[in-house]
């Protein structure tokens, strides 16, 4: 018989705000974001660390939220897809994906965007291989990756020229 552990009350720092929430300590960050915080932009494709759909950024690094316990994220800065746009204006990576056809079914898209944003923050001028490497943990079944890689390259050029 499964025993449900008692919920804990914790504050998580998500997209620049402190969020108080109660959750079971055995829950993953993915589950807490989606079920307890109500941020369903982060997707699940496997919950085993194989697909990348659940990628979020924790302290500037891309992290698979399905392999991270929510309690591990206490005290760290969590960024999700909902926090990437500023005041309703899409981030250049988001805009490039939306406009280029890099999002077909769109299910991989939030995870791809988080990986790409983290990549461009670390490496503002990636080569095509760097981009492919940076996205190699994010499966996409629809696009063949061509438009996704192009979109990230275009966004990187735009970000650099804006600097």
């Amino acid at each position, binding site marked *: 018989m*499964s025993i449900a552990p008692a919920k804990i009350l914790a504050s998580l720092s998500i997209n620049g705000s402190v969020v108080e929430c109660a959750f079971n300590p055995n829950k993953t960050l993915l589950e807490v974001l989606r079920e307890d915080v109500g941020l369903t932009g*982060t997707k699940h*494709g496997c919950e085993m660390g194989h*697909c990348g759909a659940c990628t979020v950024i924790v302290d500037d690094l891309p992290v698979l939220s399905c392999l991270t316990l929510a309690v591990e994220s206490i005290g760290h800065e969590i960024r999700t897809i909902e926090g990437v746009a500023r005041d309703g204006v899409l981030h250049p990576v988001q805009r490039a994906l939306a406009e280029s056809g890099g999002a077909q*079914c769109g299910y*991989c898209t939030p995870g791809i965007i988080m990986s790409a944003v983290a990549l461009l923050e670390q490496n503002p001028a990636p080569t095509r291989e760097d981009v492919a490497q940076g*996205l190699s943990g*994010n499966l996409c079944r629809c696009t*063949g990756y061509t438009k996704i890689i192009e979109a990230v390259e275009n966004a990187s050029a735009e970000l650099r020229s804006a600097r």
Partner: protein
Amino acid sequence: MTVPGTVIGAKWPRGDGHVKAAGSARYTADMMIDGALSGVVLRSPHAFARIRRVDIATARALPGVHAIAFSGNVPAKPLDFSIKDQHLFPPDYVRYLGEPVAAVAAETEAQARDATAAIIVEYEPLAPVLTIEQALAQDAALVHPDWQSYERRESSVLEGNVCGRNRIRRGDVDEGLVRAAHVVTSEFTFSAGLPGYIEPRCAVAHAGKDGTLTVWCGSQSPHGNRDDLAAFFDLDPSKVRFINQYVGGAFGGKILMAPEMYAAALALQCDRPVRVAWSRHEDCMHAFPRAGGSAVFTSGADADGRLLAMRASFVFDTGAYIGYGSGSALIATMLASAPYRIPALDLDGTLVYTNKHIAGPVRAPGAPQANFAKELHLDELALAAGVDPLDFRLINAWQDGDLSPTGQRLSSVSVREALEKAAAAIGWGRPLPALRGRGIAAGWWFSACGTSQARVRVNADGRVRVISGNPEMGTGAAAQGLPIIAADALGIDPANIEFALADTGDEAPDDGAHGSISTFSAGQAVAAAAADARDQLLAQAESMLEARREDLELRDGRVVNAEVPSVGASFAELALAAGGSIEGRGASSGLADPEIDESLVQGHGFAAWPAASFLATAAEVEVDPEMGGVHVVHLATAQDVGFAFNPAGVIGQIEGGAVQAMGWALTEELKYEDGALLNPDLKHYLLPTALDAPRITAIIVERPSEEGPRGMKGAGEPPVTTPAAAIGNAIRAACGAVPHTTPMTPERIWRALNPNLRA
């Protein structure tokens, strides 16, 4: 300035691009419905067993449990497929490992899982039938011991483990082979493969007190599913509503209902919504995969490489039940000799039951398999004849006026153009470094048009809304294609058009998104609805502006006087004047089947292919002979779509199809041991990653069909049908050998290169 007729054919961003990039597009699992119970399915641990007893009493009494559905309390009738061989929960035998035997709805998922564990099922395990050879053996055990009592459609075939058989015969093959200067025989085996969508399936169902049932899901065919579900549970279809959410990829894998049925079965037994959300593991255990199978080809050509005769025989493994699996064998025989002139043909396809997963209509069912076998085989014949593979194909390619294998007169044939463009794109004939090679493959496909109705509504705020029951499953056919078609008729930017996700409550029925059908059927309906809306706008403007119809035109969301464009009325003003909105209605007009020669076919219900399309893929690969590894350098597909309504969408289909096909060619394989699926996850079932993605060149060929709207031909499925074959031929060109088995793994390539060595 946007005026009618200037939108179609240009590249536009997708209407759903923004919400998807922002993370706000809602998929079924994102719906957090208040009070929803968690539904969990109990699955068979045996590949084949007799069910002696199912006892739910203990489980039903467990805390939190609200309903348990099993064979004892759901309708006893079989599901309505061409052969009525399957029940929602089998009453007598389980026929694959993972087959549902019961489902539980409980307050929490953990409680539901505990309850499934407490259901008592007594099985008497039987020796399973696991391979085609076992299924076809003289003394084979029967997957369906009671097959003789099954109801089935007249067109179906059923004889023990054989559940499909078709044949196409023309001319005298033996005579052709005797006359041939070169004769080659080749044998192939194909792996079963997942559709591979990234969103695991999920459905929520809620039965209202008023006899209604609402199902939220991500279906490829919400109207068809609604009708089937209503019929199964004896409900009035008008009281059942399917509301589609965004769909996270489908590829034919979300045509057959799955969680929808279990959620509904449970919801009908309790007064709360029930959510059935599958894990990746469960999704793999309940996938409807691309069918595995085998093929044998013998063909002959004259001394110049002209094809004279072909004999080809396919067997596909459709798994435990027929479902929608019968397409593979039908399509395979239609592809086996095409698109080439071969005077004498004997092509047959057989479908067999085994105790494995139910094969499904994965994107172009049967086609990557058939083209892989046919194109590798033809390269072997070209090699024997000493003719360059591209020349060999050009010599034999269909031309206008030729006959299809079933005697259909072909028009707007673009095989040569497709071959030449694909070959040129990868530099065919130019020197290559050692261990690099190029390969090419061609194919053909059909167009289909279902029934579809649509409305185009101009609201009082000037917004235009397209309402169609065609589901958006990721291709953009609904989110991008339909707004483009409406915008073209109305002379506005497609960005000003809202599109609706399919909802059977909208009363815009549609046959669904499968068979490369969407732009054909829903597109025609939307075009007609938009033309109707345009006529109403013009009529309204006539009276409002006191102008004659011939002096008016549409421009940027206004109806204006063509001579004095400053005089006019906006769509908003016209809609307001018309009482708040203007709504145009339209329906698809269908597509007549071309004539065929019935004397050439036996047991083939899919032998006439309207608005036929053609394509070719050329591949360049690099092989590592030590390790057997393959690096696909470049894939170029030239695809004839007749007329590209939405070129960006076509390119997306070609690029995505190329990498899907590459996965099936090189890494993707459902592996079984004793009937158990060994790789039901994305770590051991290998989808291509960004690092594997080759350079892709997508070439749109437009040779208008006589039948399609503006000459269009179906576009969604073909791109997945030829790349595996092109890759196989390129591997042989690179290293001198190629496995005749998919996926062409490093081990198989190494063995093909070292036939006399043991690893």
